[in-house]
């Protein structure tokens, strides 16, 4: 290779040394991002004996599927909350996507008289809010959002950020002539939206749906706030959270509380069982993840561009 060619290469890409360095840095960080999950999977398959002897380890002394058979013995509490998680995610996603599309479409229409008003109505809430307590009081005492499914869905139904994302999707993918043509042909507003516009913005809807589904699936804060008595409606995330708290409480106080509590503590799920539950929560995400990653990137990139 003569000198000139060598220079040419140096100007087009980093040399092999730098490339190797990049691979090491990126590879280590990428690995660090998924190792905790792999670790939890390993723990969930570790036998109780091994945990008692050497604690959690990447190389347990012996393996076991005991934790998973415990999981199935948990029975109702587990399946109920698994079902709740799915129910909340599906209902929440469908409703929030509908509300989001219906709200952002008129904001995209330049000929909508009250466009600026509704735009501001949504945007302002991104800058200022009443705070946790007033929102909680309004939802609980005025709207009756307490100890029911609605409490876990309604407070998350609308997101100003998603409205900006969706409106940008309309602006970039739906030509305004399409709407004019449709209006001239005599189609009503709803018909234009449903039959003409929606098919064009399908990728945008997929993005919004995924962002919402993720938010609902990962939700635990609303349960913490609004569910006090009715544990029949809690999702898996909150069940997992409660388990840690209850186990700690009983473990710490079993001596003080007497034989009954000690018995209860012994019957409580073992350490590996909780890790098995974590696996149960993450697996649906991990399975769907490679397929929806692309849409989420698209949505987040669009959303961070000025609306």
């Amino acid at each position, binding site marked *: 290779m003569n000198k000139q060619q060598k220079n040419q290469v140096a*100007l*087009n890409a*980093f040399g092999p040394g*730098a490339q190797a360095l*990049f691979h090491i*840095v*990126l590879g280590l*960080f*990428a690995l660090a*991002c*998924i190792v*905790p*999950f792999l*670790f*939890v999977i390993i*723990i969930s398959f570790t036998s109780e004996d091994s945990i008692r002897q050497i*604690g*959690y380890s*990447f190389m347990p002394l012996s393996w076991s599927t005991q934790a998973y058979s415990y999981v199935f013995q948990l029975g109702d509490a587990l399946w109920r909350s698994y079902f709740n998680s799915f129910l909340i995610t599906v209902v929440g996603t469908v409703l929030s996507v*509908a509300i989001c599309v*219906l*709200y952002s*479409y*008129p904001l995209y229409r330049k000929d909508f*008289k*009250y466009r600026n008003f509704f735009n501001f*109505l949504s*945007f302002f809430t991104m*800058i*200022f*809010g*009443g*705070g*946790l*307590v*007033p*929102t*909680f*009081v*309004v*939802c609980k*005492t*005025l709207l009756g959002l307490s100890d029911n499914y609605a409490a876990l869905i*309604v407070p998350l139904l*609308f997101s100003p950020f998603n*409205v900006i994302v969706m409106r940008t999707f309309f602006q970039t993918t739906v030509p305004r002539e399409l709407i004019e043509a449709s209006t001239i042909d005599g189609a009503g*507003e709803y018909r234009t939206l449903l039959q003409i516009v929606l098919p064009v913005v399908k990728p945008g809807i997929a993005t919004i749906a995924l962002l919402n589904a993720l938010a609902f699936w990962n939700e*635990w*804060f609303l349960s913490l706030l609004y569910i006090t008595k009715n544990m029949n409606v809690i999702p898996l995330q909150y069940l*997992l959270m409660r388990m840690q708290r209850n186990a700690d409480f009983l473990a710490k106080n079993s001596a003080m509380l007497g034989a009954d509590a000690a018995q209860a503590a012994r019957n409580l799920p073992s350490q590996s069982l909780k*890790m098995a539950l*974590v696996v149960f929560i993450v697996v649906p*995400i991990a399975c769907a*993840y490679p397929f929806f*990653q692309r849409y989420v*990137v698209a949505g*987040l*990139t669009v959303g*961070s561009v*000025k609306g």
Partner: protein
Amino acid sequence: MKVKPMRRWSWKDFWLITMVLPGAIWLLLIRYLPMLGVVIAFKDYKAQKPNTFWNNLMKSKWVGLKNFAFLKSPATVTMIRNTLLYNGVWIVLVLVLAVTLAVMMSELKNRFAAKAYQTMMFFPYFLSWVVASYFVLAFLDPTSGMIPSIQKSLGLKPTQFYMTTTWWPLILTISNLWKNVGYSSVLYLAAITGIDTTLYEAAAVDGATKRQQVWHVTLPGIRPMIVILLIMSVGKIFNADFGLFYNVPQNSGPLYPVTQVIDTYVYNTYANTHNLGMSAAAGLLQSVVGCVCIVITNGVVRRIDAESSLF
């Protein structure tokens, strides 16, 4: 009498209004009504008979600024310091790391590897803090966590992580970087991909080395994205990530000096004392200061570079 010229009422506007209605009602009920509810911060809010929202609000005693007395307690200084310090340091760290990793990914010749790294780095963003808190527990749990177990096997005294404050600034920082750096770098990578490739060719023709190209083409190319994400995070500097500070340290009392932030304070005050007035006061203060922060940062950015400002 002169009548202002007005656009005629039309069926089109009517139908479009029916579309925004569900969202608008939600906003009024769940966002704007609580804004009126901030008067709770100035009241000794108690359940009245009958226990309805308006009745409670009207009949509760007006106490003026008494609910803000918590500002004098030393715990307040700690939580404000924690919130600002963690957020401030993390904004810088996330920015520097995410941009560095994004540039590296964009410069990799092996596109398949770059894609694989991106997929792995983005993964934590999709998990909740509840799940992440179990990941941390797997390493730190006092009875069987990996680090205490290793300490035991070496004959050392195992660290009681959930009782000692020493390591928590580091643990929280690692947790936060673990969850957010990958996400930000994916955003920056998307911005880098959008840079016109002819700029690099032109720079190469002018004899710029690859390193110079990164400084003079890539970084200026993603500047708008950096500025927008920066405004958003500086505007939210008074809002801590509740899930991180509540779940990852298991809301452990002895750790409060280094883990208590405004958000967890508001929640813990409510959960432990049911003093709604005081939690509302802390929340109101946070909202107002946060709002001022956003407006100021945006104003500064608009003065420097009007194109990049948020509004």
